[in-house]
């Protein structure tokens, strides 16, 4: 493959990751093109890019998943490369293929590698033939084969979607009686979510850790590993808190896992940035899947290695060679802040950012698209900010994170900052008692402390009486997510924000 220079990069994504990619491209002297849906015309990533193109209506299917519209935008803007970010089209082989067919560089692995690894059943086979341990399991989704597997492996077992991700199509089956129903439900959910109803079975591990290895592969066949991350703290299979390196692993286990990840990546012909995910159970580790893209939690690796993974991705795409990484330094922790109300069973929250304060200080990084006036709309993922803290050791990183979360303030959109702060401050997190059951073991049915509720009630009463934040504001009743019916384009956040300032505080 010939080295090709990238001059103009289109980012086929939105939110914090689009902003983050724009920043790295800019320091490399690469021009950036943002794309945006009707709901995102005033979004931060649009303002940050050198050029921006509308690609369709607010619903993801009409815009950020609309391959034709994105390719057209790339052509019109003269982009010579496309970065898919994470989510959306980032792991769709048909997108990677369509991009390359247009003579545009796709920032990611080749389509066929992505296709092989994206199918969990196929990826499992690659792992098995590369000698990488996998969770005992069975491909077969039919009831009889499932019964046989479950009888030999023992209950509970896990039913998963072959095309799955994010916990969708996943079911734990505790006993034989529930097997048939679970198989049907998982297949139906997988069909609805991924258009592919194939399922497979795995032995359910009682208290595993989720540990993953960051990989970088170049076009010349070299693959290197940039340490590991622990992402065990999850709620409903969604990661909440991640850290690097994974604490308390035996050095031998860590090395074996990194070696397994490299073997796998080489066997698959991997190129670009990717992640091999494992479950760790005692002294054993089992391959889960390869994520053929940049991951949400990539900043913790960047902080301990002092690198920029987006820059690495772009260099790899331009034909440069990857080098063995330097020794990692210290520890880094990331907390995801989601627009969900932890006081109401994590129900999605939408609205407009009235006021925002972001933490700062040594070792503190914030990746977010939030700004005053920004709209959190119902169409997209609820991730609105990532706080990442680096320290000389885990305890310093943790202390910095606790302080940083204390500084975080977002008025107008309910979010999970207070919840993750309690986790960070908790004793089990402090001693790194990590497992994927962490939340259900230590924070089941979380609700805010009465003290915090009282503080909030006092603030509400003061605000209602004009004693806080100035006089009562009239906002025309529109401080809500962009109205679904009238479409967000005709409904620029700035119009209604203007009312806040006009009637609100002088």
């Amino acid at each position, binding site marked *: 493959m010939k080295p090709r220079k990238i001059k103009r990069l289109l980012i086929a994504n939105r939110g914090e990751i689009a902003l983050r990619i724009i920043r790295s491209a800019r320091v490399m002297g690469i021009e950036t093109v943002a794309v945006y849906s009707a709901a995102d015309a005033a979004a931060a990533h649009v303002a940050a890019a050198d050029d921006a193109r509308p690609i369709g209506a607010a619903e993801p299917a009409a815009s950020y998943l609309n391959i034709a519209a994105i390719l057209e935008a790339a052509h019109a803007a003269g982009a010579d490369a496309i970065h898919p970010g994470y989510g959306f089209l980032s792991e769709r082989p048909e997108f990677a293929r369509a991009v390359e067919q247009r003579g545009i560089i796709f920032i990611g692995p080749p389509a066929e590698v992505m296709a092989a690894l994206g199918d969990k059943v196929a990826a499992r086979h690659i792992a098995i033939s590369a000698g990488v341990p996998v969770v005992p399991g069975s491909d077969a989704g039919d009831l009889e084969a499932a019964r046989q597997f479950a009888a030999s492996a023992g209950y509970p077992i896990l039913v998963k979607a072959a095309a799955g991700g994010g916990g969708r199509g996943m079911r734990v089956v505790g006993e034989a009686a529930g097997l048939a129903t679970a198989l049907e439900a998982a297949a139906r959910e997988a069909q609805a979510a991924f258009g592919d109803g194939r399922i497979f079975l795995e032995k359910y591990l009682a208290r595993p850790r989720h540990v993953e290895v960051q990989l970088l592969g170049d076009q010349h066949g070299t693959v290197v590993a940039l340490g590991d991350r622990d992402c065990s703290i999850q709620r409903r299979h969604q990661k909440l808190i991640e850290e690097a390196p994974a604490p308390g692993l035996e050095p031998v286990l860590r090395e074996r896992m990194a070696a397994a990840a490299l073997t796998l990546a080489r066997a698959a012909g991997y190129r670009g940035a990717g992640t091999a995910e494992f479950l760790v159970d005692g002294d054993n580790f089992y391959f889960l899947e390869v994520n053929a893209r940049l991951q949400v939690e990539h900043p913790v690796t960047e902080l301990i290695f002092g690198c920029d993974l987006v820059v690495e991705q772009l260099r790899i795409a331009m034909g440069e060679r990857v080098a063995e990484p330097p020794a990692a330094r210290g520890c880094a922790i990331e907390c995801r802040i989601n627009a969900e109300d932890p006081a109401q069973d994590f129900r999605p929250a939408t609205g407009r950012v009235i006021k925002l304060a972001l933490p700062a200080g040594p070792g503190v990084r914030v990746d977010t698209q939030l700004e005053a006036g920004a709209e959190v709309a119902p169409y997209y993922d609820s991730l609105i900010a990532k706080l990442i803290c680096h320290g000389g050791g885990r305890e310093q990183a943790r202390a910095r994170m606790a302080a940083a979360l204390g500084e975080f303030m977002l008025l107008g959109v309910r979010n999970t900052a207070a919840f993750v702060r309690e986790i960070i401050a908790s004793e089990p997190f402090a001693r790194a008692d990590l497992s994927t059951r962490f939340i259900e073991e230590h924070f089941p049915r979380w609700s805010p402390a009465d003290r915090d509720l009282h503080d909030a009630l006092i603030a*509400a009463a003061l605000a*209602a009486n004009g004693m806080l934040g100035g006089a009562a504001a009239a906002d025309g009743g529109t401080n809500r997510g962009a109205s*679904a019916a009238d479409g967000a384009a005709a409904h620029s956040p700035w119009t209604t924000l203007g009312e806040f300032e006009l009637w609100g505080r002088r």
Partner: protein
Amino acid sequence: MKLKRAGDAREFEVEIVAREGAALRLRIDGEEIAAELEAAADGGATLRIGGRHVRIYGMRTRNAIFVAAGPAAWEFVAVEGRAGRARGGLAAAEVAAPMPGKLLRILVAEGDAVAAGQPLLVLEAMKMETTLYAEGAAVVKSIRAAAGAMVDHGAVLIEFSRAPADPSARESDPPGA
């Protein structure tokens, strides 16, 4: 004044009893509380209470009162005095969308009698499914939206009429409240 959290039935009675300079006296659900309040340049204030201090921000809009207290963000609604009476003994006279989103499924039909905690509707927003439950026993009078439709925050989705007398039915909070 009576306040409740948006999307939650529980009501709180909060009164500002007195404010003199920084000194503040309040009553929450009958319990008297003393605090100090210092305004900050950015529109927020520092609340000193029980030996602690927390930075607070607030904004009242027509429909809601938004609050940030430390890293916690809240949305309250002021409860009108007579709303409870006007519902004719129903736990809730209607079900409104707690957030904008897509109405995925409707699990009841007009004329159905529903019990407290029974699932009524499934909404999808931010790639997550949220099930809405009946707050109390009632009869579904009308369904005001169709499956597959995008609905706005606050849109009324189901209207109830009173359930026939049923001694086993009781008013209760929906699961997860």
